[in-house]
């Protein structure tokens, strides 16, 4: 007999298990499936830095949080409705984020004596057998046993069979949320097509999980989340790092510059290299250098030769690139430095998110060394924001720092992707020959934007030398003249400041143009701020939200905007960095809200913080 399907608007599921349990894959499959039925969604993968952290332990827990909805949503959700826990440690870590009355689906096999001990439960305590889970809707299944049973006909070891457990869980959830299995079937065919047994075991486990839902009466209702009411258009699902890679390819195409990526693998930036290296048919050259310094300097060499030079890294790598960034500032050549921030300092928290490289991006170089800084606010925004970074780099002949972070780099959301024809051309002018009356090429002769000409090797008659030593104005010859140095320092700064004339003015994301509180954000806090502010606005509170893409230079109207509110609140996943710059530049008594736990700020936390300001 069939179980009735109940329509719900909004669901948050957390898939949690051991880092070897395949929870990231399960989560991303459910995500794609949700995307294809037209839900709005937002994800938050959260995993340990170790490839295989000690099995069964609390530090070894890997989680994937998915928020899907028939409404427009902006965050992966503060709390979850459903927790899938493959072992005792996963339950222990994630229970606090489960809503009262929430559904818990556990694999009882992960709650044996050994697993309970590894998860640090006291001797003889099993949360599934005492009343600690009272108040939740607990569904116990021996997923391991059920999977083995489903695969009994297949000739493969027990260990291999157990690897398909995650597909059983996925199948069960597909049943619970009334889904079609096709997207995962085709994924499995693509992934395991050549390995027949593995393909078969995964498909069988997936179907078995679905059928288990159908045949047992574990749930009295199934749920369905309808298509979201998003703006009309064609959508796809995308993560931040993939959007970023696509943004770079698009910018290379639209500037007619060949792209060169010089990079060194580092979490959480490596996926950009992985993605770009698959698209060499766009003429993309990817170069996995021997270290971070070689990565950026090779990109400088490529830019000097007339390519779109890009380097991608995270905080520790950016620190190593500092001297080379200074060279790019002196050479005044276009270059994009992408920093996918993570918890620091030093190696810090490689797989956790943080916004703590802003001051490094702003100031972290020797000498007076100004560089534009651009940031992305959501996974799909990485596309547009990096496109803008390239535009500024090329049109203003300057290295540009692009800041994203682990949260949006790995997070996913639906994306109404643009058409190639709708992307604005990025104009590049190479100097090809001496102008009328020009006796000699003057590499540091500037135009009205203070931009110098780009003459690349191979151009006859424009041979010239550039380098890291201070330049004489106009000629570019080496100069130790005191007045010239001061002039050049001021000129390089003025050039970057002048970019403010060529970027959009700051707009409000929502809220009144003046009032009680302006929440000013940058980067990945966008979703949380937006949801919190909208909630308060719905209560009639005078709260506005502005979110920065251009952090250096700031949009021209930002100062006036900040002065139009009684309070300015700046939430950041760091110890207060944007706030220092804002206070310094505008003398505004902004108030900080900081969270430095390696996790995103939640909507609830912000509602409270803003509420305190409103009094």
């Amino acid at each position, binding site marked *: 007999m069939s179980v009735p399907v109940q329509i719900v608007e909004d669901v948050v599921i957390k898939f949690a298990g051991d880092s070897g349990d395949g929870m990231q894959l399960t989560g991303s499959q459910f995500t794609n499936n949700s995307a294809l039925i037209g839900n709005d969604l937002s994800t938050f993968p959260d995993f340990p830095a170790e490839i295989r952290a000690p099995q069964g332990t609390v530090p070894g827990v890997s989680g994937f949080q998915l928020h899907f909805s028939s409404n427009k949503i902006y965050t992966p959700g503060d709390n979850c409705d459903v927790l899938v826990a493959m072992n005792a440690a996963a339950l222990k870590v994630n229970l606090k984020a489960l809503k009262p009355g929430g559904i818990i689906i556990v694999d009882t096999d992960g709650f044996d004596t050994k697993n309970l001990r590894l998860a640090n439960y006291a001797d003889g305590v099993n949360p599934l057998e005492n009343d600690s889970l009272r108040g939740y809707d607990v569904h116990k299944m021996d997923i391991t046993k059920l999977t083995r049973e489903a695969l009994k006909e297949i000739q493969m070891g027990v260990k291999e069979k157990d690897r398909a457990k995650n597909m059983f869980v996925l199948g069960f959830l597909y049943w619970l949320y009334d889904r079609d299995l096709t997207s995962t079937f085709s994924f499995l065919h693509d992934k395991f097509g050549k390995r027949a047994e593995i393909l078969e075991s995964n498909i069988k486990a997936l179907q078995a999980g679905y059928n288990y839902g159908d045949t047992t009466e574990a749930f009295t209702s199934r749920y369905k989340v309808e298509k979201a009411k998003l703006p009309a258009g064609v959508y796809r699902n995308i993560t931040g790092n993939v959007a970023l890679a696509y943004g770079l390819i698009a910018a290379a195409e639209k500037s007619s510059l060949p792209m060169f990526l010089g990079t060194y693998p580092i979490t959480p930036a490596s996926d950009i290299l992985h993605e770009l290296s698959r698209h*060499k048919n766009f003429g993309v050259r990817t170069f996995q250098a021997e270290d971070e310094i070689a990565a950026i*300097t090779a990109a400088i060499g490529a830019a000097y030769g007339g390519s779109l030079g890009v380097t991608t890294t995270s905080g520790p790598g950016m620190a190593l690139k500092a001297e080379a960034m200074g060279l790019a500032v002196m050479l005044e050549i276009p270059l994009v430095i992408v920093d996918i921030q993570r918890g620091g300092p030093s190696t810090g928290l490689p797989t956790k998110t943080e916004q703590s490289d802003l001051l490094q991006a702003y100031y972290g170089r020797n000498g007076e060394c100004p560089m534009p800084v651009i940031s992305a606010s959501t996974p799909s925004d990485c596309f547009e924001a990096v496109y803008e970074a390239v535009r500024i780099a090329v049109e203003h002949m300057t290295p540009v720092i692009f800041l994203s972070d682990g949260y949006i780099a790995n997070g996913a959301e639906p994306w109404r992707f643009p058409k190639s024809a709708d992307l604005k051309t990025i104009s590049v002018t190479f100097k090809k020959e001496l102008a009328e009356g020009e006796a000699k090429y003057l590499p540091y002769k500037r135009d009205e934007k203070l931009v110098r000409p780009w003459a690349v090797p191979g151009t006859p008659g424009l041979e010239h030398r550039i380098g890291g030593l201070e330049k004489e104005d106009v000629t570019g010859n080496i100069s130790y003249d005191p007045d010239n140095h001061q002039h050049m320092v001021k000129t390089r700064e003025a050039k970057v400041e002048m970019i403010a004339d060529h970027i959009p003015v700051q707009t409000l994301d929502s809220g009144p143009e003046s009032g009680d509180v302006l929440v000013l954000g940058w980067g990945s806090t966008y979703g949380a701020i937006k949801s919190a502010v909208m909630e308060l606005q719905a209560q009639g509170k005078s709260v506005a939200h502005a979110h920065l893409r251009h952090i250096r230079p700031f949009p021209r109207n930002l100062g006036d905007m900040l002065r139009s509110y009684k309070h300015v609140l700046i939430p950041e996943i760091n110890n207060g960095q944007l706030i220092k710059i804002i206070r310094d530049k505008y003398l505004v008594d902004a108030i900080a809200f900081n969270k430095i736990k390696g996790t995103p700020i939640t909507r609830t936390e912000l509602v409270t913080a803003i509420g305190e300001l409103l009094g």
Partner: protein
Amino acid sequence: MSDAVTAAATPLSAKDFATDQEVRWCPGCGDYSILKQVQTILPQTGIPREQIVIISGIGCSSRFPYYMNTYGMHSIHGRATAIASGLKATRPELSVWIVTGDGDGLSIGGNHTIHLLRRNFDVNILLFNNQIYGLTKGQYSPTSEVHKVTKSTPAGSLDHPFNPMALAMGAEGTFLARSMDRDPKHLQQMLLRANAHHGASFLEIYQNCNIFNDGAFEIFTEKGTRAAETLVLEQGKPLIYGTAKDKGIRMDGYKPQLVDLNAGGYSADDLWIHDEADMYKAQMITRFFDDPTAEGHFPRPFGVFYAKERSTYEDDMQLQIQEMVATKGKGNLDKLLSGKETWTIG
């Protein structure tokens, strides 16, 4: 005939490669000779000036680009090799020269030097070795002999020095040669050979720093001692050296042996014949690196140690792009952006 063709047809001279910048090396520095030899051979290569790029790092030698009327970049310490790699990867048609020193190329930039060699970009590395830090006024370098007394090592240096040729060999270099500032003709030959090699050319040039390390290579460069202390490598010729060309090197089983051609019954026919393409022999020649004051020491070799073509990084990179275009078709941005799975709203 167009102007461009006329211009190209006019042969360039060494003067065409000089710039209006005042050369600022110390009077008597070995760098002057190297600059002159480079300016002399470039017209012979027939490469148009605009196709030549000289990239340097930091150090005395790294001032070089300013004195060459080509494209050039005086970059940051140790990174010329990495910058050149990025340039060559994207502009394979350019003639890229790297000017570096023992500090720039083997100390702070050692990592990039070895990786450039294994990747085999078609560039020419000119490593000016003066066994001292000149620009920072006289500290020992990674090629300084052990126990060297310098400003930073008043009680003598402790570090065992690099053998640059053995290092380059170990880093899978495909062209290794050594020359000296005091032998313009030989240096010109070596520069031309380095340029002709398709792949990474590593040319170590013994260069005298007359201020901080004067006479470091005197024993190899001065008339009185040169013939006895140096071994000039020539393809297909036996390893003969000595004032009267009376000494040679033969193989004694697996070991090289010094022999006297006047005594001991050996003739030129018994000697080791130099073969640039023989990796095993080249390995051994790089090891002829004895202290020239030691008893029974080997002469110091000059010339091409090893030359073997191997595919270059930039050619392979280009090939990979062509192959991907052939199999997947030229990149289509709209297809990329939409991906395989989309859904429509409204």
